[in-house]
């Protein structure tokens, strides 16, 4: 099926539910995903060769979604890297069996997020990893990030990771949290819509207390240093905006530091196709402008899940259902009355879960004070090793948007394609440009991910190369 009715990019909770909805409406549906199995990052599957006897709610939810998807009749292309999407919605990918492409009539982008880590001296050292990376190690690889780990950053993943490490018998040196006790407390009422999650989160928090793990509120990592195989991590107090405050610093010894400062929607495909976006700090950054039915500003293009604003897995599923039904409606495959009936419960649940999701997303939003405090010689762009000093020099010369900065300094030009540093760089440029809107966002380009040229071309003989006829003189 190379010309399906609908193609869905991403097999996380939003993408899976969009596929279930599309199949319910009878659409020929293809789901394309980079990971070995569906589930996204939140419900990431363990390797099929592992036998797991621990059935926590995340694992149960993931299995439930995977089973539903497998029985839905949707074609699932796991292990495929999408490197190009054209304006005609042609999708090009490289999979285990080489290059593939599809020409769907409609496209749902459910690409999720990438983790934002605001740079500090030492963040490029081996042993320093993302907080989301730690959840992948714990959940899908059943592995500790280190013997003794510092867990730092902000948001609900702090408690999830600290608990995961302790439960597995590992050691947590400290939890270093940018938020204050009060920042957490004011969000608790909004979480009442998700009592199960709330109870689980409080349980994780309690477990760290019982294990006598110091939880340092309103603290941030100042720097990390390497001593042989060990890391020393200096932490200090910060204000509500993440900026360091005068006050005693503490040095922690560990062999791993896992750190994450929130999530940023992965919007490159939507931007490549020209969908309208807006900057919303509390939603995680630049997000597509959607109507009430998950349509983007481009005909035939829909979006759902955290990739269009961070709200969490529960809301992502409801938005996925809505996107799938709307695509079917627009393709003329779902009658208006049925569309209203089928979408109503999902709209209702989405509204309820949005509140809880947004309360948590508030903790994850970028803190400009933290970016402003990045020391001068710190590497900001990991790939091209561009420091804060080099970025400031370009700004002093008059650079006022991120794409000019990229051409000027190579910042964001490396193999990660600006995914790791983009948010930090844009925040730095915005201080001179006046706003994130003026600072802009990297131009999305093909290839969307680095791909092996040999994998694209496959095996060929000299005679296979087409030689065009010479142009008439």
């Amino acid at each position, binding site marked *: 099926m190379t010309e399906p009715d609908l193609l869905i990019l991403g097999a996380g909770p939003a993408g899976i539910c969009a596929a279930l909805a599309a199949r319910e409406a009878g659409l020929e549906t293809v789901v394309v995903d980079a990971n070995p199995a569906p589930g996204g990052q939140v419900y990431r599957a363990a390797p099929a060769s592992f036998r797991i006897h621990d059935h926590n709610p995340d694992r149960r939810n993931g299995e439930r979604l995977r089973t539903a998807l497998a029985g839905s009749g949707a074609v699932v292309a796991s292990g495929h890297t999408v490197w190009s999407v054209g304006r005609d919605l042609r999708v090009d990918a490289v999979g285990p069996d080489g290059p593939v492409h599809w020409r769907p009539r409609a496209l749902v982008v459910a690409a999720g997020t990438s983790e934002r880590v605001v740079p500090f001296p030492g963040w490029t050292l081996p042993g320093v990893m993302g907080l989301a990376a730690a959840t992948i*190690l714990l959940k899908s690889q059943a592995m500790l990030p280190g013997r003794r780990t510092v867990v730092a950053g902000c948001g609900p993943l702090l408690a999830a990771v600290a608990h995961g490490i302790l439960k597995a018998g590992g050691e947590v040196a400290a939890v270093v949290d940018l938020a204050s006790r009060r920042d957490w407390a004011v969000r608790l009422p909004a979480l009442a819509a998700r009592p199960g999650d709330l109870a689980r989160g409080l349980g994780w928090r309690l477990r760290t207390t019982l294990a006598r793990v110091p939880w340092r509120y309103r603290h941030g990592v100042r720097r990390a240093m390497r001593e042989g195989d060990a890391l020393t991590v200096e932490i200090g107090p910060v204000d509500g905006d993440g900026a360091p405050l005068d006050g005693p610093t503490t040095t922690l010894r560990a062999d791993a530091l896992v750190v994450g400062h929130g999530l940023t929607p992965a919007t490159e495909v939507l931007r490549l196709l020209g969908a309208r976006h807006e900057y919303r700090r509390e939603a995680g950054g630049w997000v597509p402008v959607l109507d009430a039915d998950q349509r983007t500003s481009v005909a035939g293009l829909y979006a759902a899940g955290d990739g269009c604003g961070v709200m969490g897995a529960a809301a992502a599923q409801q938005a996925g259902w809505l996107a799938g039904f709307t695509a079917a409606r627009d393709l003329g495959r779902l009658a208006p009355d049925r569309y209203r009936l089928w979408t109503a419960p999902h709209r209702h649940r989405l509204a309820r879960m949005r509140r809880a999701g947004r309360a948590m997303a508030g903790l994850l939003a970028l803190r400009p004070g933290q970016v402003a405090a990045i020391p001068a010689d710190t590497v900001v762009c990991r790939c091209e090793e561009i420091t804060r000093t080099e970025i400031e020099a370009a700004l002093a010369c008059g650079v006022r948007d991120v794409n000019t900065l990229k051409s000027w300094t190579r910042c964001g030009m490396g193999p990660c394609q600006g995914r790791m540093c983009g948010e930090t760089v844009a925040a730095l440029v915005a201080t001179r440009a006046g706003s994130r809107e003026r600072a802009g966002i990297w131009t999305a380009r093909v290839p969307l991910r680095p791909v092996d040229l040999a994998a694209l071309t496959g095996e060929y003989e000299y005679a296979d190369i087409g030689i065009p006829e010479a142009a008439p003189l």
Partner: protein
Amino acid sequence: MNPRIHRHIQRPPTVTLWVDDQPIDAHPGESLAAALLAAGIRCLRHSPRHGEPRGAFCFMGACQECLLTVDGRRVLACQETVREGLRVSTGAARD
């Protein structure tokens, strides 16, 4: 200490792979990045400009820090699955 968690988990028997000509044991199906971490191999390459040590960072195929060579192919260790006899070269030789 082996960082692998054993409670409630049964893994298939280990296989041997070769990392910079040294044997390491790992379980089939594991991600190569995780297997290297478990074997205590943290530095996977050096940065192109300043030659600083780098290791796996995002574990989800975004940051490109864990790029290395497996059986002659350039792959991300976090997206590669452990199989018997893999020959891995990291760029860590200078460390």
